[in-house]
C-alpha cells in the first residue's frame, strides 16, 4: 500500500508533467525518479502517453455516415471544419469554423459541388485523416501549413490528387524532410509549391534546387537557394538574389 500512496500523491503532477513538455524540470525529474523505481508509475506514464496518441487518432476518424448520406465532398469539408480549418466550395465563399469550433452546416446542402480549396493550417491531421481529403477529386489548392502530424508518409499518399492539385503549401511542418518531398513528383499539375521553413530538411537550398528540377513547371517558394552558401561581399549576394519573388 505505501507504494501506491507514493504514486497517487503525484498523479496531478503526472498529468501536468506529461502535458508541458520538459518545461518543469523539477516535476519531470521527480517523475523519472518514480518511474524508475515503481512499475505502477511507469505503467501510468505509458498509459498517459498512449492516451495522447489516441486523442490524435480520435480527431482523425472518418465520418462514414456523412460520406454515405451527403457525398465525399461534404464529408471531407465536415472533417476539415471539425479540425478547425477552412473549406472553399467551387463558386462559393470560404467557410471557416469560429473560435469555439462551431460552423454552419449549410454546406451539407451542396450535394454535387466539389471542394476547390482546403486550408488545414495548424490542424492535427495525420496519415489516417488524409483518407477524407483524398476523396476530394477536384481539389485544386491544399494548405498544410504548420501541421504537426503531417510527415513523409503523408506526402507519399497525395498521388490520387495528381490530376487536379495545383497549389500545395507545406510551410512550417516539423516532420517533413527532403525524402517526403521526393514523392511529390507524381503531382504533375502542381503550379505552386511552398516548402519554406521546414526544420527537418537537412539542406534547404539544395533541396529546393532538386525539387525545382523534379517539377519543371512548378513555381517553388520557400528556401532561398542562396541559403547555405558562404556569405560573400555585398555585390555578389545581390547578384544571387532569387529570381522568383518569394
Amino acid at each position, binding site marked *: 500500500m505505501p507504494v501506491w500512496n507514493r504514486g497517487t500523491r503525484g498523479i496531478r503532477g503526472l498529468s501536468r508533467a506529461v502535458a508541458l513538455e520538459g518545461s518543469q524540470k523539477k516535476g519531470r525529474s521527480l517523475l523519472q525518479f518514480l*518511474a524508475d523505481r515503481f512499475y505502477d508509475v*511507469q505503467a501510468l506514464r505509458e498509459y498517459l502517453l498512449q492516451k495522447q496518441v489516441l486523442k490524435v487518432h480520435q480527431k482523425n476518424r472518418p465520418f462514414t455516415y456523412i460520406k454515405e448520406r451527403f457525398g465525399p465532398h461534404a464529408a471531407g469539408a465536415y472533417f476539415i471544419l471539425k479540425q478547425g480549418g477552412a473549406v472553399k466550395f467551387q463558386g462559393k465563399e470560404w467557410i471557416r469554423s469560429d473560435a469555439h469550433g462551431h460552423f454552419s452546416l449549410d454546406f451539407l446542402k451542396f450535394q454535387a459541388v466539389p471542394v476547390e480549396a482546403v486550408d488545414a493550417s495548424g490542424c492535427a491531421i495525420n496519415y489516417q485523416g488524409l483518407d477524407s481529403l483524398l476523396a476530394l477529386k477536384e481539389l485544386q489548392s491544399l494548405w498544410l501549413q504548420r501541421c504537426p502530424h503531417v510527415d513523409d508518409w503523408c506526402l507519399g499518399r497525395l498521388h490520387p490528387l495528381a490530376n487536379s492539385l495545383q497549389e500545395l503549401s507545406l510551410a512550417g511542418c516539423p516532420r517533413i524532410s527532403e525524402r517526403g518531398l521526393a*514523392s511529390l*513528383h507524381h503531382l504533375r499539375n502542381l503550379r505552386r509549391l511552398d516548402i519554406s521553413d521546414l526544420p527537418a530538411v537537412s539542406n534547404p537550398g539544395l533541396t529546393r534546387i532538386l525539387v525545382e528540377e523534379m517539377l519543371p513547371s512548378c513555381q517553388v517558394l520557400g528556401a532561398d537557394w542562396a541559403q547555405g552558401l558562404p556569405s560573400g561581399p555585398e555585390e555578389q549576394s545581390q547578384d544571387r538574389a532569387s529570381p522568383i519573388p518569394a
Partner: protein
Amino acid sequence: MLRRALQLGLGRGLLGRGLLGRGLGTHRGGSTLDQNGKVSEIKKKIQSVLPGGAWNPPYDTSYLPPEHSDVVIVGGGVIGLSVAYWLKRLEKPRGAIRVLVVERDHTYSQASTALSVGGIRQQFSVPENIQLSLFSVEFLRNINEYLAVVDDPPLDIQFNPSGYLLLASEKGAAVMESNVKVQRQEGAKVCLMSPEQLRNKFPWINTEGVALASYGMEYEGWFDPWCLLQGLRRKVQSMGVLFCHGEVTRFVSSSSHTETTSGEEVTLKRIHEVHVKIDRSLEYQPVECALVINAAGAWSGQIAELAGVGKGPPGTLQGTKLPVERRKRYVYLWHCPQGPGLETPFIVDASGAYFRREGLGNNYLGGCSPTEEEEPDPGNLEVDHDFFQDKVWPPLAQRVPAFETLKVRSAWAGYYDYNTFDQNGVVGPHPLVVNMYFATGFSGHGLQQAPAVGRAVAEMVLDGHFQTINLSPFHFSRFYLGEKVQEHNII
C-alpha cells in the same frame, strides 16, 4: 509452590533485569559488552569461512546468461529482436515469459541487418510475402507508437517513400502482369506502365528492351535498418528481455521413440539445455530452456546442425537438412554528377541489377545478384571490384545512359541467409525437434518482413497456430515433401 513461584518470579525478575540490563547495555555499552562482542566474533568467523563476505558472491557473474530461461533466441539481428518484442508484447499476463537473446557479435559487424540496403516493397509473387511486407510497412509507419520508450527520443527511420520500379523484358512481362494482379488483390498499390509512360515519367531511362514496368506508388521505398535495430533493442530491453554476448555451442536434448499411425518409427527430440559459450573465453553456461528460436540468419544452418536437424539417411524427414546457406552479396556506392534526380525510385532491371538514390548529392547505391556459377566464396566479406566492372555497371549504364560516367566511392559486402530450396523464409517449428522454431532463410528480404515474421512466430509460440498472417506454406516440412513456394521477384 509459593517458593517456586517466588523463585520463578525472582528468576524472571533477574532475567528481566538482566534483559533490561542487556538492553541498556547495548544502548550504552555497559557491562554486557562481553556478550555483544562474542556475537560479532562469531559473525566474523563465519564470514571468513564463507568466500567473499556475507551476501556477495565470490566473483562477478553478470556477463553470464541466466541458468533458466523460457525462450532462448539464437541471433540478435532484426528477426531475433522482433520475435523477442512480439513475445513480450503478446504474452499474458505481463512478465510471464522469460526471454533470452544470445548474440555472438554485439558490434553487428557481419550481421545482414546492418549491411542491408534497407529497401522495403510489396512487389512479390507469393501472397504471404505481400501480406508480411504490408504489415511491416504499417509497423514502420507507426514505429513511434510500437517502440515508444518513455523519456527516450522518438525514432526517425528516414523512410524514403519513393517506390520500387521493376522492369521486365518480353519474356517476363506475362509473369509480371500476373504478379501485379496478386499484389493488387492483397492491397498493394502498384501500377503497370508501358515503355511510353515510363519515358514520360522518367526521361532519363533508356527503355530499349523493356516491355513492361511495375511501379509501387505507396508504401514502398527504403529506410535505415540500423535505426530499426537500435529501436527494437532499446524497447526490448525496457520490456525485460535478457541479452547475452556469447555463442551457442551445444544443445543438450533428449529423444523419445514413437510410432506414427501408419506404423513407422519416429524419433522426436526435445532440447533441454543450450550451452552458451562466452566470447573470448572457454567458459560456458548451460541455460535450461523450454523453446529455442533459430534466428541466426546466415548461420542458421550451423545452428540447425547442432540441434541434430538433418542427421539421418538422406531422403527421410530426419535426413532433411535446413537448406539455408551463407551467400555473399556486394553493394557499391557511386557518384554520378549527371545522374537521375530526387524522384528516382528503387530500380530493379530485368537483368537483376538494381540501384537506388542515396542522399541529395547524386550518390547511388546498387548491385546485382550473381548467378549460381559465379557465387563468390562466403568465407569472408572482401569486396570484388571487378564484379562491378563486369556485371553491375554494363546493364545499369545501358538502362540509364547518364551512368556511363560514374565514380565508385565505396563498396561493402554482406550475407544473404539464402534458402537454396525456394528462396523464401522458413517459419515455424521443426516436425521432429519439437521445441526448435525457425525464423530464417529469407534470402535478401528478411529485413522488410521482420516485424510481421516476429509477430507470426510469437503467435505460434504463445497460441500454437498463426492468427493474423497464415505462414503455414513456409513450414519446414516442405523441404521433405518437395513443395516449392518459389518467389520469382528475388533481387
